[in-house]
């Protein structure tokens, strides 16, 4: 067994010497501002300008649960290698918020650049001597670009926002972001009637750029260059993608109750439905209801699904708790409904604006008694779109609640994607009998497994036929949906539901597996962890570690996962929750002794997962293994979690 000494390739900003220039197009910018100060537009302009240069990029908003006044950060990443996951070390820091500036500076790696407001009371430059500091007169520059308008009572407030556009110009010039793209992005951010605001903001950005050109060294180390590899791609949040899924999945009833980070999904969807599902006479082919709570939201969705609508509701963890009773009922009564869970951190107060994958296994077992729910787990914005559509169809096909589990990172942050593909399949209508079919059959029993696949036929209210009606109930029921407490009826039903679930596996999005030839370790992940996994595998390769990778896309897990695990000596299951929920689920469901091979790698501090959150613990484990002589399955490997994921932060 070769022993490899592993070390992670130092990141660009990690170089000891500032003058050793990192490669172009490997940029990360962190902007610290105050919530509600209008910085969001400035951040989006920076991101869009980079996107306009065709460089793969992503933007992440790390924001507080607050409307105005608390600190907020925006992370922009540009990567010629296509990495769009969160990055822990940002070599370019912009400090607009004195409250957090010192702390932000302390977190920088040596060699980083820091732009800060020259009017801060504290001189940040005194904090460290291994960082290059640039105090920038943001306020005077902004006022120069946007001189006081005596007649405008809102001037001060506008100026406060315009200041942000100055840092756009400064950073653009420092990092080689093209000003023409900045101008285009600003015009995009302030379209139509806001054209005047656009021009003021362009002046502000230009003022920043001019200041930077005059005052900054030309050879700053962190640069981007036009790449044009993302032409045609769109920047979109997962919630907007899922909202388009609601539109193109043919959803007809959408119910919801506001909760971050799912609210924007429902709001986008309502906008799209109004725009594209209103008939020429002004009448709608949908209904959107903002319910009084999540209990009512899901109750309405269940009622609508029962009566034949394609119904969907969106929420987050605390809302899922309130929905639990209805989910249990819908599972047993076999009612189609789709529930999107945009996961967030902790309990109802918790960290509502931070991301997490802590609901996945709860969703899978949600309900009472013997429940196993189907959970689709998109790993990209394109999958947020496609899986929402798929969920609406699966709910009809399988007559059961279907969950779509995304999270705040995927749902509320901007991701690059190819334009979404128009769905190929027609809408699924499931096994529904109309009056004519009832006439032909001459009989109907709601819960009889006629086809042997566990999925029975149903009828909808409003069917003009004496055989159509049945009484839907959560109580024990026989095949005719009659009340029954007979043990054999209850068991038959449960067994049929198990058969239905088993048959569903083949219809769910299959895992996506990739193998490096010669790899000894496997990696399993799901959801928004995917972009960081791609990068982590490259970093591991650079350390001499080849890997296979299996991305789960649905629960219950497919049988292919056993085959995947069987190929490797060790398999790391990477997820964004403390206890390695899916790892535990796999341990209990893999064939034979394959469970011995699983090692849990977790990240759970609320920030989006970064490649290092994956590589660090894996490298630690791999070092441990390389110190032993033979490493084969069942040799008493440490089996429990390598909870080192967050230790570095």
């Amino acid at each position, binding site marked *: 067994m070769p022993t490899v000494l592993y070390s992670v390739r130092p990141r660009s900003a990690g170089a000891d010497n500032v003058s050793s220039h990192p490669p172009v197009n490997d940029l990360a910018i962190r902007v610290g501002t105050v919530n509600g100060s209008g910085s969001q537009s400035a951040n989006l302009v920076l991101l869009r300008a980079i996107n306009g240069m065709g460089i793969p990029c992503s933007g992440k908003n790390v924001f507080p649960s607050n409307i105005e006044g608390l600190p907020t950060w925006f992370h922009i990443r540009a990567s010629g290698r296509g990495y769009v996951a969160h990055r822990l070390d940002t070599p370019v820091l912009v400090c607009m918020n004195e409250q957090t500036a010192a702390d932000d500076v302390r977190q920088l790696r040596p060699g980083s650049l820091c732009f800060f407001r020259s009017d801060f009371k504290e001189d940040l430059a005194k904090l460290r001597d291994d960082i290059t500091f640039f105090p920038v007169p943001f306020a005077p520059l902004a006022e120069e670009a946007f001189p006081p308008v005596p007649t405008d009572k809102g001037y001060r407030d506008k100026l406060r926002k315009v200041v942000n556009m100055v840092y756009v110009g400064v950073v653009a010039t420092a990092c080689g972001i093209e000003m023409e793209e900045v101008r285009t992005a600003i015009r995009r951010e302030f379209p139509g009637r806001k054209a005047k605001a656009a021009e003021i903001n362009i002046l502000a950005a230009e003022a920043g750029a001019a200041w930077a050109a005059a005052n900054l060294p030309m050879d700053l180390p962190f640069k981007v260059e036009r790449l044009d590899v993302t032409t045609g791609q769109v*920047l979109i949040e997962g919630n907007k993608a899922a909202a388009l899924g609601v539109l193109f999945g043919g959803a007809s009833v959408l119910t919801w109750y506001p909760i971050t980070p799912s609210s924007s999904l429902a709001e986008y969807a309502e906008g799209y439905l109004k725009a594209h599902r209103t008939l020429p006479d002004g009448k709608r082919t949908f209904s959107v209801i903002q319910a009084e709570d999540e209990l009512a939201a899901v109750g309405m969705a269940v*009622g609508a699904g029962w009566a034949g609508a394609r119904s969907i509701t969106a929420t987050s963890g605390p809302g899922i708790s309130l929905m639990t009773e209805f989910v249990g009922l819908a599972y047993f009564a076999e009612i189609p409904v789709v529930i999107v869970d945009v996961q967030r951190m902790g309990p109802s107060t918790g960290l509502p604006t931070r991301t997490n994958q802590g609901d996945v296994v709860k969703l899978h077992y949600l309900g009472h008694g013997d429940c196993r729910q189907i959970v689709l787990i998109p790993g990209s914005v394109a999958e947020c779109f496609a899986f929402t559509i798929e969920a609406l169809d699966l709910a009809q096909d399988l007559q059961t609640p279907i969950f779509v589990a995304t999270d705040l990172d995927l749902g509320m942050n901007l991701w690059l994607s190819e*334009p979404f593909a128009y769905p190929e399949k*027609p809408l699924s209508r499931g096994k529904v009998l109309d009056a004519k079919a009832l006439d032909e059959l001459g009989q109907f029993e709601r819960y009889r497994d006629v086809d042997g696949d566990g999925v029975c036929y149903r009828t909808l209210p*409003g069917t003009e036929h004496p055989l159509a009606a049945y*009484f839907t109930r959560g109580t024990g029921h026989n095949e005719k949906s009659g009340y029954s407490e007979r043990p054999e009826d209850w068991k038959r039903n449960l067994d049929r539901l198990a058969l239905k679930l088993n048959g569903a596996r083949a219809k769910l999005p299959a895992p996506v597996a990739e193998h490096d030839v010669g790899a000894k370790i496997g990696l399993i992940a799901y959801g928004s962890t995917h972009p960081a996994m791609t990068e982590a595998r490259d970093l591991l390769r650079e350390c001499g570690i080849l890997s296979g990778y299996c991305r789960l896309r649905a629960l219950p897990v497919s049988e292919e996962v056993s085959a995947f695990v069987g190929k490797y000596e060790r398999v790391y299951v990477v997820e964004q929750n403390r206890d390695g929920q899916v790892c535990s689920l796999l341990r209990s469901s893999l064939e034979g002794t394959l469970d011995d091979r699983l090692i849990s790698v977790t990240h759970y501090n609320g920030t989006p997962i970064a490649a290092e959150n994956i590589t660090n613990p894996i490298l630690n484990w791999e070092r441990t293994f390389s110190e032993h002589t033979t490493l084969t399955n069942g040799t008493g490997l440490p089996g429990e979690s390598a909870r080192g994921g967050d230790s570095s932060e």
Partner: protein
Amino acid sequence: MARDDTAVLVESPGRTTSLPTLAFQGLPSTLCKGCGHNSITSALIDACKSVGLDPYYTIKISGIGCSSKTPAYFLQYSHGFNALHGRMPSVATGALVANRTLTCIGVSGDGDTANIGLGQFKHACRRNVPVVYLIENNGCYGLTKGQFSATSDLHAHLRREAGEENVIPPFDLCLEAIAAGATYVARSFAGDRKQLLPLLKGALRHGGTAVLDIISPCVTFNDFSSSTKSWDWAKAHEEPIQEIGFVRQLPEIEVEQEAGTTTRVRLHDGSWITLRALSHSEHEVTNRAGAMRFLVESQERGEFLTGLMYVNPDRPDFVGLQEMCETPLSQLSDGDLRPQPDVLREIMAGI
């Protein structure tokens, strides 16, 4: 209207059919003999037949409780859904937007509505969801064996004459309904079939939230002589405030002829409710503030007044407010539900 024992003429928009009487019946009741809920079921069946309700376009939705079991005992040609405790209103709301052609009978109990379900009850009233909302009110939890509910009277006794005393005053569900925005609010008594029938008929033809708070004795847990929800007390103390009639879509002129001492209210579908005051002739059923004052005062006097308390046939109902197309959402074609590829292309180009 029952023509004879076997056929009932039903009318739905656009069609008239004849259905056998058994379409309106259900399975035999499994409730206790003498339970008030059974009397309500039987009145409901007659009311449905009498207004020519189309069972194929009717849904029965209930919460959980003895009362909520009753949808199995009527309208067997109608789809039914025994849902969750206190959550009938949300299921009804969803089903009604899914298929706007449906009429919904919602069955609930006092625990189901006044306790666990108060929130959904009030929000349904606030939205004016078109549901016939029956509260079979026995002042206790029948199904879980007699505990107090939020309509148990102050000083009521638990389960028997000498049972523990309730020290918290009740909700008046008619008052709560009117305050929340319900548009047809009545109180009745399971033993007063004469009054219950026209009230039910009117509710079935009203196009908004029609709340009927029906005192319905629980013979097993709350039928002792001091209980205000017992058969004997209710019979002895019930004071119908009006003599109520229901007139099905008569030409205006015929209703006119009944004028005089009678108040008439034209319902959504053109039927009429006629009211002749028996007592409290000053009570105007269309006056919301007056109705609330009337209820508060009668409660303070400890009276058991029954009748139509409030009606407002003009407020638009929730389903109408959704601005949905004529075709029920449940029956839309792929073409109506999924926009064309160029729409996706345009949206993508705009992002």
